[in-house]
């Protein structure tokens, strides 16, 4: 190999190294690879600037799916090939009518370079402006349509026609041939994690005021404060797994004391048809409660497990919840008399749904609880309720601002066996006592 050929090969190799990362062609296999010269001035730059001015004057950047067009044209580097290429199979704005000359090519990626061929220099300024816009659309439109030559050409003409206006361009984008592929693409696209998955953990405070009937003498709890911390560091963004802790402070008529400690474990296990499926376990313990509360009919350690189906739409939410709590007992001593309070196995089914609007969320909830019943036993005093059924309902209102959430909840018994109250379920942290409650809460998600 003589010295001249060696230099040519070296130059070619160097050019490949230098331009190896340059995106060339519209997905072709590089058949038309040519030596390229970066263009920094001249008719190609001037026409690009006028193309930019054109689309800015029409304010197309504010039209849906055209927001990246300006950046795509402005930031795309321009190269000029040394020789023309022909592509008889191609047609459209980028190619001469007889297919003998390709004017320009680019890759369908936002900031890919544009490669012009010498044949483009024979075009008028208006044609070059059209070409810049056309190539820019190939790079900036959504993937579903940016390689569809007919669609891109239609949009190009809408922008570059002499009577082009903002409304005409917007109308062209709304055409069925464009909007339908976009919406189909949107439905089929893999959605990014929704906000609640982006913030799987939260800390919050809840205050509940119970409502009791005047003739209800079983318990006399007035209100409850609750602090909760639910941390989900495991399982990744799609399946958050974590533990929660809740502390409670209970107000009785004239006394206040520590209530049960709540330990929870939750995990989102799957998402099907946009429904999140979660499982959870909850353990309410009276270990830390004050002695006065330990010695009460409500002081039972309660274990609950459940499954939750939840769908969070753009302007609605719906949730089904099913849970099971096995039988457990509480001991109460008065003087030398010991009473054992037995709460039967409890099955709970709830439905929540509602609408969402600008951060607000509002809707009803309804819940049916069926329990094996409650009984109290001592040596001489047996008392039992038999199988219990409690139907309750309420309203929930919340407002979410970024990671903060404020809520108001009201809940009441609609119907129950023998008109008994929530205290016969022995679930202070869950359903509370009496005929229902009103609660306010706020939480911070992260």
């Amino acid at each position, binding site marked *: 190999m003589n010295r001249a050929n060696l230099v040519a090969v070296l130059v070619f190799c160097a050019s490949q190294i230098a331009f190896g990362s340059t995106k060339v062609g519209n997905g072709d296999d590089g058949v038309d690879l040519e030596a390229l010269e970066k263009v920094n001035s001249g008719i190609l730059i001037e026409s690009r600037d006028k193309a930019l001015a054109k689309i800015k004057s029409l304010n197309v950047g504010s039209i849906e799916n055209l927001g990246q067009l300006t950046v795509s044209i402005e930031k795309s580097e321009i190269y000029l090939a040394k020789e023309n290429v022909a592509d008889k199979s191609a047609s459209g704005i980028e190619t001469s009518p007889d297919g003998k000359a390709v004017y320009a090519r680019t890759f369908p990626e936002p900031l890919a370079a544009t490669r012009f061929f010498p044949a483009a220099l024979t075009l008028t300024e208006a044609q070059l402006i059209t070409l810049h816009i056309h190539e820019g659309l190939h790079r900036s439109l959504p993937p579903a349509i940016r390689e569809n030559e007919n669609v891109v050409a239609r949009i190009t003409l809408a922008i570059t026609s002499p009577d082009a206006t903002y409304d005409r361009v917007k109308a062209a984008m709304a055409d069925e041939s464009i909007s339908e592929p976009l919406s189909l693409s949107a439905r089929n696209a893999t959605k990014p994690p929704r906000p609640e998955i982006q913030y799987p953990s939260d800390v919050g405070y809840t205050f509940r005021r119970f409502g009791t009937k005047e003739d209800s*003498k079983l318990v006399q709890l007035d209100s409850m404060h609750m602090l909760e911390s639910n941390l989900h560091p495991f399982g990744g963004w799609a399946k958050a797994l974590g533990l929660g802790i809740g502390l409670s402070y209970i107000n009785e008529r004239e006394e206040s004391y520590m209530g049960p400690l709540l330990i929870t474990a939750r995990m989102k296990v799957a998402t099907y048809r946009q429904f999140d499926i979660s499982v959870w376990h909850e353990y309410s313990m009276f270990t830390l409660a004050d002695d006065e509360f330990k010695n009460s009919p409500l002081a039972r350690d309660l274990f609950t497990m459940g499954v939750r189906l939840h769908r969070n739409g753009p302007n609605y939410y719906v949730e089904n919840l099913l849970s099971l709590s096995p039988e457990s007992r509480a001991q109460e001593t*008065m003087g030398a008399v010991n009473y054992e309070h037995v709460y039967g196995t409890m099955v709970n089914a709830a439905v929540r749904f509602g609408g969402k609007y600008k951060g607000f969320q509002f809707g009803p909830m309804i819940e049916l609880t069926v329990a094996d019943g409650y009984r109290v036993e001592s040596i001489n*005093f047996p008392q039992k309720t038999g199988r219990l059924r409690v139907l309750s309902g309420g309203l929930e209102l919340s407002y979410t601002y970024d990671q903060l959430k404020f809520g108001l909840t009201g809940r009441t018994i609609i119907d129950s066996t023998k008109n008994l109250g929530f205290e016969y379920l022995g679930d202070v942290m869950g359903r509370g006592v009496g005929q229902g409650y009103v609660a306010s809460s706020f939480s911070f998600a992260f």
Partner: protein
Amino acid sequence: MDKLICITLLMTLCGCGFDYGSKEDVPPKEVISAIDEAKLISTSIEDGRDPQSYWQRAYTISPESRLLVRYQKLKEKMSGIRDDKLVIFRIHLIDPNQVADARANMKICPVTKNWMMKATWKRAHPYKGGEWTPGGEVESAKCISSSSDLASTIDICKETGALCFDVHNWYHNYLLEQDLNYGMILISDMPIAIYGEISGSLGPRLHWFENKSPTK
């Protein structure tokens, strides 16, 4: 004679000796048990869990305050209780000088509705159906006043300030015949203070007799 001695020895060795006396001849054992379930119900106490209404050193019995009493394990003891003997309920007055007034104004009555330690003047218990006649549901016809005769025959009734009630009819009618242990209620037409269940030996007591096992 030798034969007689031999037979006697043999019978003694096999436990077939002469009968030195039947069970009826063995004096019965006195059993005194502390009342362990006592609840004060009063027109001024609405909360059944009021700590002033149970487990106290003293109670004042008056027209507005009554004391429910029950011995929890009485049913378990029934098999040993001699039903041909007295069953006595005994209290001690704070002021021994009120014994005469107590005999004239105080009585003990069978309770006819089951109650629990959360009983109040208006309710036997806080659950559904717990309402009762204000002051407790009693069988008024079977109310008993204290008998001065007991003070001369029963040792525990001889103590200063002691007041005894013969309740063996209540035991028969309720425990033996109906297997019901609803306890009794102490009622007074004038304020009289008595020792409560945590006053040691001065607290309310139930006294009965059981068969003593003969010694061999």
